[in-house]
Each structure stands twice: as structure tokens, then as C-alpha cells.
């Protein structure tokens, strides 16, 4: 595949950020997300960008990890910027850039979580964050298992998608008006193949689970929030408050 994708895998390393509890990072992402939704102002965006850059620096994310989007990505942004500035001038350009930056920094903050957290810790962390729902008699443990298996299945499925696309490319192309199976549209066929393969895979996994006597523990090493996590959360919330204050004052 020539396309450069963002690998949703941990960047090797051991830093302050890597050692944080996964739940803390998810809370931060959620808080920043809500902040920018409620208040998409420059101070708020600045805060998110600052958190992203500082986190990346502490975690020691190498420059090579940053995805290089295709040229048309920048092209679209440039066209959008030009369009906005013809009528509304500088003000229009700045509004447009604010809207674009809003999307980009939020995605960046999520990607940073994935890059600094072992996949295995995400499911237990989400389970712990959902724990209050247990009082509403919701099957939180079952959901945690589902999330863990979903994350586990993801690399297998991405690989299957890759094969599916390769199979499609290898097939002969016939003119669409030919009355022959090779000329028919393949999207439904591809969905059926993917679903069939996923269903087979899931019954195999279900048997593997049964063979282990059902579900239970998800991870070998328990990770729980520590003092560091509390400190980080307090800092981020103070930052959010400051951004809100700055927006009101400015």
C-alpha cells in the first residue's frame, strides 16, 4: 500500500506520558474535546495545541511518526482559505483557519493517546471509567470484554481489509455492459466476504474463549491512577478554566 496511514500502534518508549494511566489520558481527551466544542475560541484551541505539543515532546514522539498527508489535503485547505478570504478578507481567513484547526488538534490529541498507551490498557481503563454505570445495572464487565476483543481484532481486520482490496485489484476488469460475472459491481461481494470472514473469525474466538472457561481477567498487570494522574488532571482542568477565562476577557 503506497498510501501512508497513521499506524494505530504504540510508539516505543518510556516517558512520563507512557506511564500515565490510560484513563487519565482519555479523560483529558474528552475534556479538551468538550472544551473546544463548547468554546471553539483561539485560547481554547491554543490550549489543546499546547497540550498536544507538550505531550508529544515529553513522550519523545519522533518527527518521522507524524503522518504526511497527501498533497490534495493541503490543496483543499488552500482552496478553502482562498475562498474564505476573497469575500471576508483577513477576518474570513482567520475564521476558516479556526474551524480547520479545531478538527486537526482534536484528532491529534486522540492519536497521541494511542501512540503512548498499550492497547491492552485501554479496555480496563474504559471499564473503570464506566464503572458508575454499574449502579444502573448495566453490564459494564461484558462491555469491557467486548472493547478488549474489539481492540484485539482490529489489527487482524485491517490486514483482512488489505487482502480484500488486493484481491479486488487482482481481478480482471470487464466492461460494465458485458453480461458476465466479471463485469458486475463488487461492493456487496466485498462486504459479504469481509462479514463472512469476520463471522468465522468470531466463532473461532468464541471457541477459544470457551476453551479458557469463559471471561475473567483482561490484563496481567493492573494499572490504576496514581498521584501523577491527579496532578495532570488538575493541571489540565486549570488550563481549561484559564482558556474559558481568557475567551471571556478577550
Amino acid at each position: 500500500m503506497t498510501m501512508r496511514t497513521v499506524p494505530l500502534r504504540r510508539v516505543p518508549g518510556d516517558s512520563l506520558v507512557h506511564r500515565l494511566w490510560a484513563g487519565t489520558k482519555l479523560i483529558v481527551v474528552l475534556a479538551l474535546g468538550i472544551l473546544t466544542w463548547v468554546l471553539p475560541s483561539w485560547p481554547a484551541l491554543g490550549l489543546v495545541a499546547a497540550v498536544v505539543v507538550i505531550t508529544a515532546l515529553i513522550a519523545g514522539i519522533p518527527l518521522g511518526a507524524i503522518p504526511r498527508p497527501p498533497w490534495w489535503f493541503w490543496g483543499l485547505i488552500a482552496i478553502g482559505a482562498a475562498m474564505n478570504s476573497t469575500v471576508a478578507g483577513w477576518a474570513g481567513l482567520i475564521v476558516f483557519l479556526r474551524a480547520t484547526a479545531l478538527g486537526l488538534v482534536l484528532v491529534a490529541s486522540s492519536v497521541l493517546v494511542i501512540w503512548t498507551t498499550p492497547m491492552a490498557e485501554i479496555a480496563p481503563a474504559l471499564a473503570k471509567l464506566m464503572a458508575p454505570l454499574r449502579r444502573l445495572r448495566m453490564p459494564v464487565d461484558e462491555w469491557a470484554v467486548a472493547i478488549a476483543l474489539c481492540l484485539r481484532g482490529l489489527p487482524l481486520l485491517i490486514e483482512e481489509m488489505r487482502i480484500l482490496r488486493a484481491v479486488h485489484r487482482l481481478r480482471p476488469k470487464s466492461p460494465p455492459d458485458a453480461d458476465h460475472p466479471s463485469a458486475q459491481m463488487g461492493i456487496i461481494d466485498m462486504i459479504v466476504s469481509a462479514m463472512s470472514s469476520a463471522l468465522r473469525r468470531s466463532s473461532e474466538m468464541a471457541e477459544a474463549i470457551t476453551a479458557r472457561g469463559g471471561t475473567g481477567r483482561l490484563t496481567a498487570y493492573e494499572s490504576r491512577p496514581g498521584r501523577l494522574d491527579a496532578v495532570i488532571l488538575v493541571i489540565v482542568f486549570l488550563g481549561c478554566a484559564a482558556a474559558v477565562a481568557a475567551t471571556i476577557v478577550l
Partner: protein
Amino acid sequence: MAIFGGVTVAAVVIAAVIPVATAVGLLAPVPLAVVAARTRPRALIAAAVATTGVTFAMAGTGAASGVFISAIIAGIVGDTKRRGRGLPTIALATLIAAPLIGGMSVVLLWILKPLRELMLTAMKNSLDGLGNWVGRIPGLDGTEDFVNGLTRNAVDYWWAWIWISGTIGTAISIVVAWWVLGAVIDRLADVPAEDTLDQGQALADAAAIAPLPLVASGIDFAYRDGAPLVLSGVDLRLYPGEFVAIVGANGSGKSTLVKVIAGRPPTRGSVHRPGLPGLGRRSGTAMVLQRPESQMLGSRVADDLVWGLPDDVDVDVEALLAEVGLAGFGQRETSDLSGGQQQRLAVAAALARSPQLLIADEVTSMVDPRGRDEILDLLAGLPARHGMTVVLITHRGVEAAAADRVIHLDQGRLVAHPPDWIPRDVAVPAPAFDEPRHPGPAADPGWTRPMLSLDRVSYTYLPGSPWQVRALHEVSLQVNAGDGLLIVGGNGSGKTTLAWVMAGLLEPGRGTCELDGESVDKHVGEVGLGFQHARLQLQRANVGDEIMAAGGLDVGTTEVGRVLDLVGLPRSIAARHTDSLSGGQMRRVVLAGLIARKPKVLILDEPLAGLDPYAREEIVSLLAHLRRGGQTIVIISHDYDGLARVCNRRVVLAEGSLQPEHGQTEQGRTAGPDLGGNRR
């Protein structure tokens, strides 16, 4: 127990959402709709929560809310389908749900005033700018005023615009999901989704578990009432501390026998144990299954080892990993392990439950020879070290050699003597097609024409990033017309990447790969590639269409019949549904499709994995036959037993580099010239 089956269906299927969702947003509800249509609402809810949660962790709040809405749509569509309702119901549901879902964004934007203002300003400026540009085109002068009026209207009545567009958008996705689901669900009906290990037994308390000694007599087994007997009249005894091998061909019923030993009640006959089998429980029965990657449930090695253990059980992770030869691997990702390592990890996970009975069901069939030996050594040592009974299921006679006792199974019955193909390579039944002794293409002067030439090909995944993996390094190789080339390499040697490069699916990072003098990535499809995963390669609803679609425009029913004969399948199979085929049949259909395409070079990735000696022999004969007909074949495998009949050359790939070429494997029986010295 069954709920977890449902949940797993959910979890794995929905994981598909993420790559699909980014590509085709409209199709995002489909996988979840399949879940909703096949299982109970509870599994759908779990699936929806898991997808939303995972999407949130992967792509943030915005994407998560999008997936959440997809899940609602999937629920509506799937549940309607599951209840067997038709178009009127879904139309009614659309009328109610679409305005509500469309209204959700209105309410959200109504609350989030600054976000709304930002969005509307940006939209207004963009549209005005566009109007201004278009207005400058002569003859379109009026456009600017029209666009300005429109945007002003959209900004003033934003709620109406967003509500209407949201409603229409939702309605469209419901209709699309309904249509796709309708097309997909019936074709998926043949996919087995039964947990064949599920015994429906209540959770036993530890005291009642005692699987051994086991005395089974007169066992008959059929999967359904009236279905043919898979086992008939089997008697079996298992005592503590034994190493027993059960040997039989594919379809001899050995996997079914294992399920009975593991606790599934037989259709007729009796099974006596002192207590319950306790599958997966402490001091009970443990199983290691065939497919390595589907058994890995945890993300990291240590997680997988403890996966599913009760919370109060502590195990010595390091000691167990050391016992299976994986000391220090605890933090590695399970997906990075080789097949052999994954199987040994599965054994460790079984040992974590200190079972009295360990069943290994064809654990070596997907593993390279070195991994196979390591697993066998490990299993053979367990009875002495832990006093447990090990039951090894295999179709390889050699693997049974270390066992205290060998049980032979043939067509569901016990047989006293090994069938005559054991140890192997003796008295193989005649292949389904005749094998005329061609004079051999060696007589053809054009024989040594190079077909595919690779010149110092290197390939690195994600170069320059922290995840970069060097898969191929300076590989130079030439495949001549009529060659049979065997590329041998273990797991992780880069052999699959090499196959993709040779088929033109990957462009080499450095170096060139040319087919008939032109870069092969400009001619994708002329080199046929058979993947190890057969199901993904079959895309049509039935076998006949599949072969025609894979073969191209000039393949008609006659040709379908011919290639089916060639791969040893009955012509009547052409009308069968793809998903009703067995694994071995699927593989032959893939091969038939590839042959029908008449590729210049045919590349096969692990064509023999998991086949029993009969099936292997048939496939090998078929490939040898094809090659005698002049087909150029490249086989990529870790398993080279018997392939000497197909291949005249063998190269070894290790860590992405070609090792010096091994001696010729040509045995003089088959035609083919001696072509040495292709290394530059």
C-alpha cells in the same frame, strides 16, 4: 456462555467499522446491522458501546458520536430484519427516527452557540467566496446574488437547514443500510456461527471437576438430528499421565471426538468421568486449538496468558512463559509473535489453569517446521513434568511417534492399524485427473525466457517512522517461463511481502520488479496470487460465478467445468453457495479461479497449510500437472515436504534477504531444465 459468543461476534464484526467507516461513511452501520440481525439486542448494545468506546479512544469525540449514530441506525435496520418485518416497518421507522436523529444535531448546535457561529460564519464565507468566483465567469453574473441570498437564508434559518439535511441524510443511510443488509444477510446465512465447544453446562464448583480417568463406550455423534454420523461406535479410555495421539485424515471425526472428550455430550453411547470435565477451569480440561492468531485473546503476551482467569487466581506469569520457552516475552504484542510462538503461548495459557487433561487439536498445522518441533517437544514433556494427560490430535503420523499410545480414526470409526499413508508418501490414491506424460517443455527453445525478474528489491513498511519494518532487503531473483520456484521462509521472513511485490501489489521501495520487461505494478492481475486466507478471495455468491469473475470475460461454463475437473471438484459444485463450502473446498475453488485467469505466473502463498496427506498429495499432483502444461509456478511456503515434484528450484528467504540458493530439488521425474545461478 452463549452470550459471550454473541458478544464476540459483535466485537469482531464491529471492529471492521473503523477502517470501513473512514472509507465509506454510508456503509458504517452495515456490520453492526449484521450483528443486530443475527444476535440478540444485548449483543448489539455491547457491540455499540464497544465500537463507540474504541472509536473515541482512536479518533476522539467527533468520530465517536458519528459511530454512535451509525449504531442507532444499525439497530433499527438490523432489528427490523431480525423480526422478519419488511419495507412498511422500515419506512415507518424511518419516518419516526430520521427527524429525531436529524434533530439531535440541531439541539446540540443550539446549545453550543459559539461552535454554531463559527461553523455558520465559515460556511457563509466559503459559499460567498465560491459565489464570487463563479460570478466572475462571464455569463454567470447573477450567480453571486443568488448564492448570497441562499447563504443569508441558511444562516438565518440554520436550524431548518440542519434539521432537514440531517433528516434526509439519516433517511438515506437507513435506506442504504437496509438495502445492503438485505443483499448481505441471506448470503451470510450459510456461515456457521455455532460455538461447537459450548456445552451448556452450569458453572461447576471446583470440587466437582474431575475429567479423568475417562471411559467412553459406543459413542455416536451427529451435529444435528438426522445429520450424518460423524462418529460411530467409538470406544476410548484415557488415564492420568498419558500422552495419547489421535491420528486421522481431515473429516475423520477426530475434532468431534475431541469435543466429546472435552465434555460435549454424545448423541448415543456413554462417557464416564469421576466428575465434570471443567473445560477451561482449574484442574479441569484445557484445549489448544488449530488457528494460532484466533486464539490470542490478550494484546500482550502476559495479558493473553491470564486472559479469562478468575480475578482471585494468581499465576506465576514468568515461570509459565519460561516453561514454554517464551521467557522475557511478557510485554511483547501477541500479534508480533510467530505462529509457533503463539501456539506455545496458548499452551502456557492452558497450563495456567493446571489442567488434568490437555487437548491439543491440530496445533501444528499452521506452523513452520521448527515451531512444530518446539511445540511437540513441549507437549511431550508435560505428562512427566505435571502428571497431566495430553491428547494430541494430528494428521501427521510422525507427530504421533512420541506418544505412549496412538488411536487411529478413519471415517468416524476406530481402526486398529494406521491407514496405509502413515508415515507418509505410500500408496496414494490416484488423483482425480489423468496425468499424461508430456515430453516436457524442456524441448521448447523459448523455455529459458525470463518472465519475472527482481533486481535488488527492498521494501520497508512505513519508512522513516518509528514503526518502520524492513521486510525485504536487496532481493534479486529471476523466474523463467515454465519454472517451478519454491521460496522457503519461516514466519516473519518477508515471504508474504515478496509475494505482494511479485504480484505488483506493492511497489518496491528500491530496486525493480519486472514482468516481461515492464514494471509489474503496471500489470496487476497478470501475475496470479493465491492468498493463504481462502475465504477473502471468494467474493461471488456461488462457485460458478466466482470462477467466471476471477477468470475474466472469456471464461464460460465449459471452462468452469474444465477447471473444476482439474482441481478435483465435482462439476455440480458450481451451483453451491460459497459459504457452504468446507475450508479445503474453498481453497480448491480459489485455485480454480486462478487457473481460469491463465496468469503468466502463478504465485501461491502456503497452498498446503492445514491439509492432511491425502489432500496435500492431490494439490501437489495438480500443481505438478499444471507445471507440466507449461504454467510458471512460484510457491511460498515454510513447508516443503513433497513439493519437489512441483518445483525445480528452491530459494530460502530469511529476515528479508535471499540465502544462497540451495541445491536443485529436481528429482528427474518431472520435466524442467536445470537452471542454476540466478543470483547476481
